Structure formats: structure tokens, C-alpha cells
């Protein structure tokens, strides 16, 4: 607004030093990883069937978790944002609890609910002879449990901050509720949905604790990339470095996709 440039703020000495330390703490590990990644082995490692299997499983499971989170999370976010109902605050608190819950605890809880002797799992097993733990479906469930809240929070806040009068304008033009949702509400909240989906997917892809305690670590069935990294660190460190680097690249890609949200400040 004003023509004159803002005066440069004077940086207190302590703030500068601590900020530099913080940046080093956050970036040095990444530099370390990049420096030790065995670039020359990349072609060979990417042909390794075991690595490919893990990669494929990770993508399938995380994308399935993303799909499940979207299908279940968007309607719940809408309900939480738009409908007053008794216990709404409680439902919201419970729905985002996995964000702050240690993932291992989440895995144990999933086991106690969906395990063969679990609350629902036992009934399921008695009826069908099938149980979730130690299956790829179990991985998807664990990842959804941990990742869906990220999507939920983002979409709900998008719905809350949206100007609802656009929906009223659509209504006066003859649009039904469903048409309004499809042609006005979702397009106007698309940035929040996209952001929530990216965060949700990244969280699902990186999920470790809940997965290993609920679904175990079976190559080809439940062993995702983070689990493989952890194991390879013992037996074959270069492979662990490489897989880690792949995950880092994906994370950077997600961050770039979200740059308007998190890197938008000048």
C-alpha cells in the first residue's frame, strides 16, 4: 500500500543463531541422505524384483488409502462443517485423534478392533474365515486410519471458509442440492481438497508404526517402502539409502504440488 519500503527489522543476536541451528537441524539429514545415495546402483536396484514389489505395494496401498479416505472423509468433512448435530465436537475430536496418536498405538488399537480376536474382527473371522491383519487390505486400513484426518481437517476448513452465499446464488438459479454440491461447493473448495489429498497420500505412503504393528512385515503382501527401509538398513544399507531417497523425492514433489499453501509466503 505505501510507497516507502519497510525498514529492515533488526534481528536480535539469539534469534539469528537459533534460526540457523534450526535450519541446519532440518536440512543436514537430507544432505546426508543425498550424499550417500548410491547413484550408480540405481538402475540395478530399480530392476531388483524385491524392490519393485515393495514399490508397487506401497503405491497400491497408499493410493487405495487415499481413495478410501476421500470417499469417506469428504462426506464427513461436509457434515462436520455444515450440520449442527449433538456430539459434533466429540465426533470431530475423535476423527482427528489419529493425527496426534502415536502410530504404533494406532496399530495396536486396530489389532484389538479388527484382529482375529478383536472386537469386530472376531465376528468377521467367525462368519467368513477371513481376517484383516497381515493382509494388504490391513495395510490400507492402517494407512487410512493414520492419514484420513489430514484430508478431513483440510476439507472441513475449506468448506468452512468458503462463502456459502455462492450456494444460495446457485439455489436461486434453480440448482438442486446435489447440483450445487457438484457445480459450486466442490469446485470452490477444490484447493483445500487437493491439498488435503496430497497430505493424506504423503502420510499414507510414509506410514510405518501402525502398519508394522497391525499388518506385519510380509514381503509382497504388507511390506511397504518405509518397512523395507527399516529392514534393509540392517542387511543392505545402500538399498535402504536408495529407497529413502525415493521417498524423499516423492515428499518434495508433494510439497511442490502444495507450494501455494505452504511455500506461498514470500
Amino acid at each position, binding site marked *: 500500500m505505501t510507497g516507502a519500503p519497510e525498514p529492515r527489522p533488526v534481528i536480535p543476536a539469539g534469534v539469528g543463531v537459533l534460526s540457523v541451528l534450526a535450519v541446519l537441524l532440518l536440512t543436514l539429514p537430507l544432505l546426508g541422505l543425498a550424499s550417500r545415495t548410491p547413484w550408480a546402483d540405481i538402475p540395478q536396484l530399480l530392476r531388483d524384483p524385491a524392490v519393485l514389489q515393495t514399490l508397487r505395494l506401497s503405491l497400491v496401498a497408499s493410493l487405495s488409502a487415499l481413495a478410501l479416505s476421500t470417499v469417506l472423509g469428504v462426506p464427513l468433512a461436509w457434515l462436520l462443517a455444515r450440520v449442527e448435530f449433538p456430539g459434533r465436537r466429540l465426533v470431530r475430536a475423535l476423527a482427528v485423534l489419529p493425527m496426534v496418536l502415536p502410530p504404533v498405538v494406532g496399530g495396536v488399537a486396530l489389532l484389538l478392533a479388527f484382529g482375529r480376536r478383536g472386537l469386530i474382527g472376531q465376528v468377521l473371522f467367525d462368519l467368513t474365515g477371513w481376517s484383516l491383519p497381515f493382509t494388504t487390505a490391513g495395510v490400507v486400513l492402517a494407512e487410512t486410519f493414520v492419514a484420513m484426518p489430514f484430508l478431513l481437517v483440510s476439507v472441513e476448513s475449506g468448506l468452512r471458509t468458503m462463502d456459502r*452465499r*455462492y450456494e*444460495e*446464488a*446457485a439455489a*436461486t*438459479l434453480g440448482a438442486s442440492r446435489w447440483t450445487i454440491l457438484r*457445480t459450486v461447493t466442490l*469446485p470452490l473448495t477444490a484447493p483445500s481438497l487437493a491439498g488435503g489429498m496430497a497430505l493424506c497420500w504423503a502420510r499414507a505412503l510414509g506410514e510405518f508404526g501402525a502398519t508394522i504393528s497391525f499388518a506385519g512385515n510380509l514381503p509382497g503382501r504388507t511390506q511397504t517402502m518405509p518397512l523395507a527401509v527399516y529392514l534393509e538398513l540392517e542387511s543392505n544399507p545402500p538399498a535402504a539409502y536408495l529407497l529413502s531417497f525415493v521417498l524423499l523425492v516423492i515428499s518434495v514433489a508433494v510439497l511442490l504440488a502444495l507450494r501455494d499453501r505452504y511455500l506461498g509466503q514470500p
Partner: protein
Amino acid sequence: MTTLACDITLHRDGFTLRAALSAASETVAIVGPNGAGKTTLLRCVAGLARLDAGHVTLAGRTLDDVAGRVHVEPARRGLGVVFQDYLLFPHRSALDNVAYGLRVTGTRAAEARARARAWLDDVGLADRADARPGQLSGGQAQRVALARALATEPGALLLDEPLAALDVESRQDTRRRLRQRLRSFDGPVLLVTHDPVEAATLADRLVVIEGGTITQTGTVDEITRRPRSAWAARLAGVNLYQGHARDGRVTLAGGGEITVAGACHGAVFVAIPPAAVALFRSRPEGTPRNVWAGRVDGFDSFADRVRVHLAGAPPITAEITPAAAAELDLAGGGAVHAAVKATEVTTYPR
């Protein structure tokens, strides 16, 4: 003839709106101060706010009837609404905004776009069809919003402060275009505005709402000639008082007494034009006029006149020449005397 009629009662957070009005094929301006309930009234008619009692009908069709448990959804009322800041869908082009109402009610894409194009042409914006709302000027956005509302061929048109979001330059041009467009619209138009000029130039009839109730209805001429509320008095630019008349003297409700020329009795309004008020430093002698002492409470200077606000019984606004103001030494404040001829005072029954 299409008639829009409503009788609305609505309670919200300690505020009560109680208003009944009807409009034939004419433009009725709903005017009044901010917070009077104008927009709420419009939202009730549009079906966006639910009445607590009363009814809304359009061309004999019941849109709301609280007693009869009828509430027609906004989407099925057949009303065109232009919102205060237009609310053009930001992710659609001007053309797709105008076509929206047709598309969602089942018109095929090609035909909807062709008709939308004709409506854009009608408001003089055929060349802006592909522009996003963010690329339109305020006046253009207003015209697109109007075209969008008209494209559904509504039975009545509701406009909420259609010019308030515009700057002074585009307001005049947009008002002229809107006036022409409303002339050719065949149906009732309700126009909410707080701007007297807008009301006077666009509407056939005014409905004044203050504090949730209708205080006066009539043409601009009728209202300015005999204002019956603070808002209408401001529109007319007169000092307005309520009082009780007996034998040519009116005892004012807020204190003070005024001698009037005509015969009147009972509860009356008293209107005094500011230009009819003379101000003196010392009490003028020997004139058969209303004279009372007051204190200068403030003044507004214009190019060729000064409006002086006087605290007293009654308080009054006087309009005097800058020369007279200089003589009075207004900036010094202090006591002055106001004088008004009995023949300059208008009274009419309450």
C-alpha cells in the same frame, strides 16, 4: 398481471421483522437505514430465510405459508436474485455464469449457451463472454449478474443493493442501464437500497423500513412532501418532529413548542425546511415568529451554504449563507437564537 405479495414476520437474535407489502409489475424500492431488515426481507421472499409467521405469494402461487406449512425451496420459486456483491461463480466464464440457471434446469448445453449469449448481448457484454468474473470491472460484473438472473426468465426480480459495490464513475452508467432494463422487465421488482438517489431514480414506489417495521410507503414525491420517519425526513432534507396540536400550537414530543399557521388538531408531524430557519446572536425583537434559544452543536460547510446543527428545545438544523455564518462566529460556539415563521411550518396528521 403478476403480483408479488408478502406478509412476513421473522425473529432473529432479538430483532423482529414485521412487514407486509405487494408489488405489481412495477419497481418497488425497499429503503431505510442499515440494519433495518431490508436484506432480511428480500431473503425471506427468495426463500433463503424462513419466516416465523406469514406468507409469500407470486402470481397467485403460494411460496411460503407458515400456517399451511408450505415452503417452496429457493430453487423452485422462479425468482431472479441479484446479490449485493453479485456472487458470480469465480470458476466459470461470464457466459457460463449466465448459462448456469438454464443448464441446471435441464436446457441442453448448446441451447443454454446460445441463449446466455443473447442475454449477455442484451446487457451489452457480448464481447466479454469468455472473461472470468475476476477480469470484469464492477459495473460489468453487475450486468452479468443481472443477465444471469434474467436468463432463467423469472416471475419477479429481487435486487439487493445492486449498485452499492460500484465506484462513483461506473455507478451512474450502471444505474442508467439498470433503469432501462427494469423498464422492460415484465413483472414485480423488489429493489433493496440505502441510497435515496438510487431509490428515486429506479423505483416507482418506495417502502421505508426502519427497525424491522414499515414506517411509510408511497412515491418519492409523496414521501418527501410528507415524511413520516427519520429516514424519510433525511431523504426530504427537513427537520421532522412529532407532536400534539391544539389551537394553532404544537407541543413537541421531544420538548418545545411551535406555532403553526394552519388549523390542526391532535397527533401531528411537524416539518420545517432548514432554509426556513434563521439564526441570530441575540433574541430578535417584535416578530410574530417562533423563536427559541439553542447552542451550536456542529456545522457542515458546503460551497454556497452552511448547515448548522442546533441543540435546544427542539433541536433543529438551519441552512444559512456562508456570510451569515461568518457573522454568527459559529466556530466560537455558544448561544444563538433560532427563528421560524409560522407559515414556513408544515403539519400533517400522524
